[in-house]
């Protein structure tokens, strides 16, 4: 089977990959670039463990064909923290003990950051519906929601001060 040449930007770095045409963006990230932070829980768009940003839109990377990512800017969980340390969403998830096994966490980190970038002041219902595409079997969501609420508070405090 002839391979497809894909050029894309991942977490700020230009990347070039040869992949099989039926491979997903998730496979490209995990198998070709060895960025295994993005997880596969279902491969059918139902669990959100594979959530990444593609040109600033949240997508299930298992539903995007790798060739479709050509020319796109992709941000994965590995690209959320920066030289200043953890993103406030990551820090708050830790402080609230909002992960148990942690396999869903990369998806929640990416999705919650995207929410706060768009809407700095979401109420509980907004957070719950925004994150409804991310399954967590361990936590019952309570502490995740509280962590995101707390992160929003903290972001507000730092931007207004």
């Amino acid at each position, binding site marked *: 089977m002839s391979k497809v040449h894909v050029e894309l930007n991942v977490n700020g770095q230009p990347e070039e990959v040869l992949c099989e045409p039926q491979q997903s963006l998730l496979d490209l990230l995990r198998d070709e670039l060895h960025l295994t932070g993005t997880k596969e829980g279902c491969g059918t768009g139902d*669990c959100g463990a594979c959530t990444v940003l593609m040109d600033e839109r949240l997508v299930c990377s298992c539903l995007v064909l790798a060739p479709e990512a050509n020319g796109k800017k992709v941000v994965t969980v590995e690209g959320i923290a920066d030289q200043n340390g953890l993103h406030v969403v990551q820090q708050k998830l830790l402080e609230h003990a909002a992960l148990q096994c942690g396999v869903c966490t990369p998806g929640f980190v990416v999705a919650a950051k995207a929410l706060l970038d768009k809407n700095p002041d979401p109420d509980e219902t907004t957070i719950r519906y925004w994150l409804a595409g991310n399954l967590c079997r361990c936590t019952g969501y309570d502490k995740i929601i509280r962590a995101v609420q707390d992160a929003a508070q903290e972001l507000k405090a730092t931007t207004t001060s």
Partner: protein
Amino acid sequence: MAEAVREFTAIGTRPIRPDGVEKVTGKANFGADFSLPGMLYGKVLRSPYAHARVKGIDLSEAKAMEGVFSVITSADFPKENPSDMSCNILAREKVLYHGHALAAVAARSQSIAEEAINSIKVEYEVLQPVLSADAALAEDAPLVDENLRTNGDESFMPSNVAATVHYERGDVDKGFEKADYIVEEEYRIPSAHQGYIEPHACVADVNEKGRASVWCCTQGAFEVRNYISEVLQKKISDIKVTPSEIGGGFGGKTVVYVEPVAVRLSELAGRPVKMVMNREEVFRATGPCSATVCRVKVGANKDGIITAAKAWMAYEAGAFPGSPVTPGCMSIFAPYDLKNFVIDGLDVLVNKPKVAAYRAPGAPQSMHAMESAVDELARKLNMDPIDLRLKNAADEGTEAPYGPKYPAIGLVECLKAAKVHPNYVNKPAKDVGRGVAVGFWFNIGMQSSAEIWVAPNGAVTIMEGSPDIGGSRASMCLMAAETLGIPYDSINAVIGDTESTGFCNLTGGSRTTFATGLAVVRACEDVIAECKRRAAMTWDLDTEQVDWENGFAVPRPGVNIEAEPLSFAELAKTAGRTGGPLVGRASVNAQGAGACFSVNWTDVTVDRDTGKVDVQAFTAVQDAGRAIHPSYVEGQMQGGAVQGIGWALNEEYIYDDNGVLENASFLDYRIPVASDVPMIDCQIVEVPNPSHPYGVRGVGETPIVAPLAATANAVREVLGFRINDLPMSPPRVLEALDNAS
């Protein structure tokens, strides 16, 4: 409340887990994240029939395919006396459920592996499947296993009943004669899946001398080693298992499916082999838990004292014996002090996947039945459901229905805390129904080991073998900090592989914080003893003349010496001069795990047009013995509550008439999402477990038990009638509403 008394410095605080940063940045390695150079990909061929005789398998095309390195069937497993697990992993003469594995290949790429699997031709003689306990128990039912005799008794004719369980006490007939009110009902619950988000995954690499290295996501690396050894008849010393981080298990990762297959494929291919299940395979061929039928009869006198109780239950085991009907029977009446009862249970074979443990295995189903019946009794008696339970509650000294007398337990404390909880005192609004139920789990101890290594700067590494599925590293570090008297931040906990730490049973049965925690505390005490010896040497005293206080060696009061206390850090720094590195170790076979009780209540509404039940509020009160890290205790309570709500309202295995699972995806097997549930309010009650140095009881399993009946009882309150069977999904609620009008 938990926070009120603070006699500890570390225990009861809520620090960040030591493995946290890796888990929020994507650096933590889970089962599918591991790779080796030259690695092949393994895939499995699965049966398209629920019940069929395998007449022949033609592997020739697959074997000849370019890029295929090995192809196996059960003929490549040892032939003699295969265990049920072996026959489940690769079918022998018969396939016993839709999705049953019967061949596997290893190839250079996933697509080649898939092609090879598709090229395998199997000739089947299709047999009639047995698809429910009712069908399995019917006269002339087809036999799942023609050689199965109940309880292994050769004097019986073969049947689908693998085992029977029986408990009784007193005289139930007399007991029911004394009852003024009697409730008698039947409750049915279909199979549900554990639903861990991470599918099963492993890499196996067998070297030229037959030594196997396996990396996998599991609740117990040592158990995986034993299973591979059993299935492949390999020496355990030729198998090394390294547990990855684990993306949820809930009992479903206490057994193996792909690991022995990957080992055999690697052995034949001479290359490492990676196997990762997809979600559909997880649904079709792993887990689930038993579908059940429970009949319960309970009688009480007009004062609300339960005079007799009777239960009969059938648990589907799937295609091989081993449903959790025994714990189902043992737990059904566990919260109550009963003088007269009879309990009967059956372990029943059907043509469905072999069930696996699921959080408090067996208890949610049987206790849903009892807690629903007790709710009906409370209605007949016109009594508050908590008061009725208080009148009959088991307490210290009560003889448990399964035999032993309870030591200190926290059921009464939980019920009393619930009764005065603001969420209970505030009555629900009109059209909102409230339901209450009690939960219970035995908890287990078993074997654990721990080693402590002290670095020259006083930093401590704990090496232990319990895969961390919910923050247990943090609990280990807290108990070590408390025992040694040093800061939490100077301690790290590492989960070892089967060759770098002592034997440790799996993470399950709510045993980790209790039993592995006990080993960690004892290992710390071992280090302290050594620290005291070194200090005594420094001061020229006997070891008995030295005490350990808050992280310092000090001369015992009355010992006449002028000496500055020696800190743990100083002792670590000078260890090279005083006899070498400081280490400690301990191993335990922990006894007295201490049962864990809970009380849950929930407020729900029902949309009479759509049949949808909405959970408005949920409160969990639970005895933790002692909460080491209260946030992770609450996390167990909240996670269990939501799993239980999902089971009560939505989750079920739906089969067609041929035994094909119709909803093998997260789209159609819908577990609760964030917008389905409210915040889960928690109150931790602490009735210390006398068998643990800090009073710990396991807390992981009890939380899933009460939500089923609590939700059912709440729906009963709104509707004015009861829906006995779960789940109370919109179509079923609508049907019930139709039937009622």
